[in-house]
């Protein structure tokens, strides 16, 4: 039986052989499991944008983009399987949308020479391009998010948080633990009291955590949640009558499907975002070229939603980086190493975003050899339950780099030492 299986699997692998003359963008998505609620709109946005570029512009610089979707179920073992299955196809950049899978892939992409873009997740210290040659996390990362949230609270409290109680409710995984160190350092600086409460995967059961919050009555709750955990947390917050305007999610805990299950009770819930949510002209193009043409990855109902927009934004950054790479190297059929050069030279300006039909969708930033993390800015948005919309309540808030830079330096240097990595970027 084993040999038969082997032969059949071999045949299956052969059938999906590499095709030439296209730019391959693997999409490690998850449309199943407890995190599918977030994974589906993101993947829809990611794929639809590539379809749009193919249909409307005839590809990237004249070369068609090919997206290979591979289901990971947010599971690291399947993520590795997907990576190994797709890397031989000429993959240009990986975006796994999972911090767990990112940690798996960081050493692998460095060995294989394929860029990894973890937009707003993954290993924060990958911002340091001197150490992480192949990993990018522009435009912002977790520690930026933590700092932006605290800065927003500072603004609300007239610049003084001393004596306030802030609770971090986090997904008990690498993802959820990332902001703890930053929040601790910031608490020393600003004098608030931090306590942390973990929620285990998948986060469907949070009664005891919210009982504790109800007992301790912190002034603010910051949440690092994902998937089904968000909906449950917001519902539980409503159940214990925690004031929603004092409850802030990070940018993975601020999509429509997170708040709608709680109905009107979710009104006033705040979340960070790295994109402004608006009616961009690009959505009309997607409607026309992709959804109406029957080419959409999903059923088209997600167009314009928070995570769809973010998935599309991720695809846009990949396309722009590919274009930059094509210009730099003067050929259309770029490979992964050229893609990396393009990502490192990527510059996003207001004019460029407007030209693409998405003016102001993200912050302006420029990637450089030593800074793979972009500007780090984020906005705060608030849920308006009656209108069913996220209202941006701030402009882009810049994180506190004075606190973050030493942390990034420390963590990335530890990685460099562990793995004997020579620092790059000698000019700086």
């Amino acid at each position, binding site marked *: 039986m084993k040999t038969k299986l082997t032969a059949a699997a071999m045949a299956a692998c052969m059938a999906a052989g590499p095709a030439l003359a296209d730019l391959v963008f693997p999409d490690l998505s998850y449309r*199943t499991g407890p995190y599918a609620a977030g994974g589906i709109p993101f993947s829809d946005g990611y794929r639809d944008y590539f379809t749009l570029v193919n249909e409307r512009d005839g590809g990237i610089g004249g070369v068609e983009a090919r997206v290979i979707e591979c289901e990971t179920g947010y599971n*690291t073992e399947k993520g590795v399987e997907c990576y190994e299955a797709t890397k*031989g196809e000429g993959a240009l950049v990986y975006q796994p949308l999972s911090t767990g899978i990112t940690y*798996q892939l960081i050493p692998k992409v460095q060995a294989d020479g394929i860029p990894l873009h973890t937009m707003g997740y993954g290993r924060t210290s990958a911002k340091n391009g001197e150490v992480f040659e192949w990993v990018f996390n522009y435009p912002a990362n977790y520690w930026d998010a933590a700092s932006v949230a605290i800065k927003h609270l500072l603004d609300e409290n007239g610049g003084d948080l001393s004596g306030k109680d802030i609770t971090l409710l986090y997904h008990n995984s*690498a993802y959820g633990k990332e902001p703890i160190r930053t929040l601790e350092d910031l608490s020393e600086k600003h004098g608030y009291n931090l306590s942390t409460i973990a929620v285990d995967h998948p986060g469907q059961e949070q009664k005891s955590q919210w009982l504790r919050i109800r007992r301790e009555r912190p002034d603010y709750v910051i949440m690092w949640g994902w998937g089904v955990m968000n909906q449950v947390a917001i519902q539980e917050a409503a159940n214990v009558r925690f004031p929603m305007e004092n409850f802030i999610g990070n940018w993975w805990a601020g999509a429509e499907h997170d708040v709608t299950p709680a109905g009107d009770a979710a009104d006033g819930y705040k979340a960070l975002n790295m994109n402004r949510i608006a009616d961009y002209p690009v959505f009309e193009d997607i409607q026309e070229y992709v959804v109406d043409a029957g080419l959409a990855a999903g059923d088209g109902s997600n167009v314009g939603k928070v995570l769809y927009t973010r998935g599309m934004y991720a695809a846009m950054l990949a396309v722009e980086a590919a274009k930059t790479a094509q210009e730099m190297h003067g050929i259309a059929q770029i490979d992964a190493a050229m893609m990396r050069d393009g990502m490192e030279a990527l510059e996003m300006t207001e004019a460029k975003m407007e030209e693409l039909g998405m003016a102001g969708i993200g912050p302006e930033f420029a990637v450089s050899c030593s800074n793979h993390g972009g500007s780090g800015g984020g906005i705060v948005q608030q849920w308006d339950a009656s209108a069913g919309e996220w209202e941006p309540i701030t402009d882009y808030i810049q994180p506190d780099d004075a606190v973050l830079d030493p942390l990034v330096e420390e963590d990335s240097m530890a990685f460099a030492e562990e793995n004997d990595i020579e620092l790059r970027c000698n000019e700086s």
Partner: protein
Amino acid sequence: MLYREAGDFKTSYVADGQTFPIRFDRWRYYAVLAVAFGIVPFVVNDYWANAVLLPFLIYAIAAIGLNILTGYCGQVSLGTGGFMAVGAYACYKLMTAFPDVSILIHIVLAGGVTAAVGVLFGLPSLRIKGFYLAVATLAAQFFLVWLFNKVPWFYNYSASGQITAPERTVLGVAVTGPEAPAWAAYLVCLVFVTLVALVGRNLTRGKQGRQWMAIRDMDIAAEIIGVNPLAAKLSAFAVSSFFIGIAGALFFGVYLGAVEVGEAFGIQKSFLILFMVIIGGLGSIFGSFAGAAFLVLLPVFLKNVLVGALGWPSDLAAHFELVIVGGLIIVFLVAEPHGLAQLWRLAKEKLRLWPFPY
């Protein structure tokens, strides 16, 4: 015809007592070993190693471990994931604390640490049995995962709580870390699988295994005929955990390279390995391999067929995979409640008589 015993004469006790008494069976076994050691390492690529062969070999080790405890000694355990985590974290701590010592020694030591932990959690088995023991081992599962999440010392105070395997070499070739070539990682796992299967097989058909089976079949009767239940049960826990610890260390070090305890060693891992043992066949070393192959290779194979060859959307394929694997489990267990190993045994019986069945 194929499995002919006629003319296969044994002239010594050693020959009579060997693992594969039928000549054809023995040659088949040597052929599998020759292919696995002599051919596969030369043709294996990254995808085959990392997505197919490494998980299969490592789960096979874990399944052999659990089979010794559950299949041979009759002690139901739901703590396999937790014990694998002990192996992984022990290996990580040893790797980082003593970087100059060979990784192979660390993997064996990690197994030893797990064996000690296993014995500790096996103590309640002297008093509680059956489903009640399953619940006690379930507590071990949750406690161990909680422990590795809670105490930063275990993950060397890293910011994310992840453990990442640094590069370690055997005879100058990297076997852990990203630079490890596919064949090296494969060979390391293969060597451990072969040793574990060999030791497991010979333990279970010797005095020790007979004691375990006596305890499994009826512990009071076993005690009356002179089997010490304390020694038998605890030795089963020790040997089983030793193997599972090795599997955990390989899973972390050689296969994934970075793990997060809750995700990699959660309760679903315990169930997965228990299902491998049940589907493969309780009380059979071959069954452990068959069960691991069934639950590791089949989903990958289905994915490649449904998405790669038939071009289905990946989410539909992922859902259907569950349906098909679940359906096949029911079919196989209805057809043969004693697992794939029993099917294989029956097939061998039939082959002996073929082409003249009676």
